[in-house]
């Protein structure tokens, strides 16, 4: 399984990385986040405000993941 994981804003800053090539098998976005938390517990405080996008579309946390997906985690948007 190969997932292109992207982190933005406070998520990116927390771990100091914007892009992660993810290979560990996961079923859905929530599992991916949980696995990411194990490696980067500094993300924990941001869990409550986490937004998920898969292939550039907003999705629910239980959205199933497939090989080749682009998954992004970020805090609520603040543009404008």
């Amino acid at each position: 399984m190969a997932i292109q994981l992207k982190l933005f804003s406070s998520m990116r800053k927390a771990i100091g990385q914007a892009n992660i090539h993810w290979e560990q098998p996961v079923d859905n976005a929530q599992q991916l986040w949980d696995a990411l938390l194990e490696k980067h517990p500094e993300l924990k405080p941001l869990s409550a405000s986490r937004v998920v996008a898969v292939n550039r579309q907003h999705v629910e946390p239980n959205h199933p993941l497939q090989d080749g997906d682009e998954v992004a985690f970020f805090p609520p948007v603040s543009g404008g």
Partner: protein
Amino acid sequence: MHFKLTTDPISIEDATSRLSQDGNGALVTFSGHIRPEDSFGNNLSHMEYEAYVEMAEMELQKIADTIEKRWGITELVMLHRTGRVEVNEPSVVIAVAAGHRPEGFEACRFAIDELKRTVPLWKHEVLAIPQTQSE
């Protein structure tokens, strides 16, 4: 319909010059500018904007589609800065040309409200470092 995420300065003129006024009686624009202080009253040096560019473009397109569907308006421009934006400069400019003013105002307001709600952009305040006072 035109949208752009750019590190270059943007302006109302940029936006309106891309609209066709022909047959449209009403032109409404909104620009959002960097205010000189944060919510605690601290002076800002500048603002930094971060974007998830590919997704932002998809979300902007959704806003345009909704506006066309709801008001029949196709003359819409949305510009947003990324990177460093100075105090008082616009970070976002929206322009809408419509047949009449009610739908022009409504569509312009909808565009900025939706942009702030759905488009993956994040602002980071950079505070001015106070000068050390000499004794």
